[in-house]
């Protein structure tokens, strides 16, 4: 039987897309990576359909890799399929399966967006711990598979820390359940069973080991009170020293971000930006508290730290009225405000940020490209640094230069002691070679779980 007929038999004819105009929309994500047209797009609704698809593709010799896709809001090429792919579009799998108030967990399908989940949870007085700043369009499955970051991470941990169980369809079609939910009649309240953390194998795996088809996440009550603060500093050194002092203490920080002031003043001229923001750095902080008094006390302590480093107090305005109001589409607002950008994501020891900041400027100048700089404290232990390079879809001739600049930044950041959040297959060997041993182990794991290499080739370098 040919592949198309087989896929149509499993999911129904209307859910297999083969026309070029249909496949075009699956050929790119939100990154600069050029399009790759898949061979087929299949849109399953159930786990059983996916199992049948995988069993067939894995056993036959059609040589069509499988590429998993939810929303494809990846800014680093994670949503671009490999050549000859069968794209597995999970957007039809978008239900909330269960809200368990007893165990304080919610179980969802991978194609559900964070925005949809929040709309339901907030009505019940709940939230999940971490949600991206692209919540309205980002799907939960993709976020888990790419180990995304976002709001709330500072307090609750990253998305991987929120998981109490997964269901994964492995390349051979087997369904694996991780966590306590693997046992019949036991609710999904913890990802820890005996032995190693199997959930962890798939969190951040970019679809190379299997497809996540169900996710259970921890629930938390909505914050009781909030406080907002914005400061401007003359330079990145003073800013980061403030952040470092904040990280040393125990504050309940929903969000902490530093960015070049000039990049936002133009967009929000109605706000009072003081005297330093124009040429300096703006620090935005959102605090939650058990009471308004608690939130205010935290804010006062944070303000004292900022003032010690000559920070200028800009009040609540930006943090509350601009950022917090747009927090669920902030990734889009922040990133795309002044044109398209490609983003590099690194985790960096806090005190090293000034060095990274300066190196970014130098490399940007070397390539004569506009490289924006910003960072966020996602934890008390490091900073997420994400410089972004501006590009235009109208001028593909500069894309190579943008990629070279990106590679140069990658190499330099690794040399300086930063950890890349992604290692996509498009990176050159000069970079991926630095992770030789780590990648060797991943390759062995991949060989064991996906011996026919049907899953998402090249989403992680060398796999």
């Amino acid at each position, binding site marked *: 039987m040919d592949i198309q007929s087989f896929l149509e038999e499993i999911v129904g004819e209307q859910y297999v*897309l083969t*026309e*070029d*105009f*249909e496949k*075009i*929309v*699956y050929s*790119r*994500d*939100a990154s600069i990576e050029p399009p790759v047209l898949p061979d087929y797009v299949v*849109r399953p609704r159930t786990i059983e359909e996916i199992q049948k698809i995988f069993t067939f593709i894995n056993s036959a010799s059609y040589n069509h890799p499988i590429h998993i896709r939810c*929303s*494809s*809001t990846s800014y680093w090429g994670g949503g671009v399929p490999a050549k000859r792919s069968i794209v597995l*579009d999970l*957007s*039809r799998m*978008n239900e909330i399966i269960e809200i368990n108030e007893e165990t304080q967990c919610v179980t969802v399908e991978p*194609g559900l*967006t964070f*925005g*949809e989940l*929040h*709309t339901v949870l*907030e009505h019940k007085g709940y939230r999940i711990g971490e949600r991206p700043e*692209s*919540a*309205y*369009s*980002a799907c939960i499955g993709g976020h888990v598979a790419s180990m995304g970051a976002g709001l709330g991470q500072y307090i609750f941990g990253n998305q991987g820390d929120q998981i109490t169980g997964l269901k994964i369809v492995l390349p051979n079609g087997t369904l694996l359940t991780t966590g306590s939910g693997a046992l019949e009649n036991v609710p999904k309240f913890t990802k820890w069973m005996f032995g190693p953390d199997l959930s962890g194998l798939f969190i951040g795996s970019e679809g190379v080991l299997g497809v996540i088809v169900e996710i259970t996440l921890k629930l938390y009550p909505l914050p009781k009170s909030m406080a907002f603060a914005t400061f401007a500093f003359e330079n990145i050194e003073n800013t980061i020293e403030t952040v470092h002092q904040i990280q040393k203490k125990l504050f309940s920080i929903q969000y902490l971000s530093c960015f070049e002031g000039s990049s936002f003043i133009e967009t929000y001229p109605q706000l009072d930006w003081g005297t330093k923001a124009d040429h300096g750095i703006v620090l935005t902080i959102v605090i939650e508290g058990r009471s308004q008094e608690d939130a205010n006390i935290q804010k006062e302590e944070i303000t004292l730290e900022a003032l010690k480093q000559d920070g200028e107090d800009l009040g609540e305005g930006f943090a509350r009225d601009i950022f917090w109001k747009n927090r*669920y*589409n902030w*990734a*889009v*607002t922040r*990133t*795309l*405000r002044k*044109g*398209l950008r490609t983003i590099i994501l690194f985790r960096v020891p806090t005190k090293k940020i000034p060095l990274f900041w300066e190196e970014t400027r130098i490399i940007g100048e070397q390539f004569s490209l506009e490289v924006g700089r910003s960072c966020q404290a996602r934890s008390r232990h490091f900073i997420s640094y994400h410089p972004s390079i501006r590009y*235009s*879809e*109208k001028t593909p001739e500069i894309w190579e230069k943008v990629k070279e600049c990106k590679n140069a930044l990658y190499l330099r950041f690794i040399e300086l002691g930063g950890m890349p959040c992604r290692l996509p297959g498009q990176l050159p060997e000069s970079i991926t070679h630095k992770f030789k041993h780590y990648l060797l182990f991943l390759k062995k794991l991949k060989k064991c779980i996906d011996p026919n290499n049907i899953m998402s080739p090249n989403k992680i370098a060398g796999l």
Partner: protein
Amino acid sequence: MINSTSEFLAEALYKCGRCSYCRGYGAETPIICPAYELTDRLEVASPKGRLQIARRLLENSIRSSKELSQSFFLCSLCGDCKDKCIEGIDTTEVFEVIREVLVEKNVGIDTHSKFMGSVVENNNPYFEPHEKRFEWLPKNLETGNPVTPEYAYFVGCTSAYRRQPIAVTTTEILHKANAKFTFMDEVCCGSPLLRTGHKEVAKKLATKNIETITKTGVKKVITSCAGCYRTLKQDYPVLLERELPFKIIHSAELLAELIKDGRLELSDDKQMKVTYHDPCHLGRHSGVYDPPRDVLKSIPNIKFVEMSENRNNALCCGAGGGFRAGYKDLSIELAALRVSQVKKIDAEILASSCPFCHYNLELGRDKIDKNLKVVDITELIAKRLL
């Protein structure tokens, strides 16, 4: 394949970074793209999908076809994606331009071509004789042709042929307010044609209507249809490349003014819980949100409640943009979805200010709750006139 509008399209299409927000799901706006939602989240039916396809059409790297054109016509041009686009892409304009191109290539929608034929022959898309356009007008409401009318009432095809009570109540109100107004020998405003790729025919209608209105000597034109309002006010100046010599006023705006000036007195009645549906062409497309609300709130003993999806976040009723003609079942499904949002707030009455919305919302209502009353705001006001 696309030549004269290439510059506009290139400017718009190369801005899209595929962020997917245009088909996202948010707190105030649970559904941004109705077509994406109704097609089980089919990417080609989303604004992002359409922009990607449009770009390939512009680059000549893909051929148009009947199947491809479905992607562009499966859209009510509600404008929610345009409202939400961070890059400021005028998505509805892009889709209208692409529709023109597809119609030129003979891959448009058959039902659209049919109603276009009716407009050419009968001056309305409803296959009704032009001579019956004012059959709704009772003798006691005829204007008597005032010498110097202040207003011309542009009735519009849907009020004239399908939602005649709205034409009647608007006329009653004008009489009650002692407004000097006149009717005229109007033809279709052209909105259905503009939205479905038949721009050249729409241009001819615009020329005719402008001539007719100008002959009346009025400086103000009233319409109770959101589609006519948007078309007369925004599209005519662009189509005809000149400013209009008169002002276009929606009946909701006029009502708000008349009530504020004390020219209309309204009686009391039993309390009713009323909500308001923002027609896309009046709300998102034209920015008119407050006047209809002011009108509703001024009615004695009306408890006005907002749906959570209101103003620029309102869900489309599913009628406009050729959606109803091209995809009737999906159109009614969308109307039913809108009515289900009304049900969440327990409103007894769903008011709107567009006969086309009224038309489709009634069909949606019939699927959800036949007890819900769907009314035009002119109908509510007319019932309370003292």
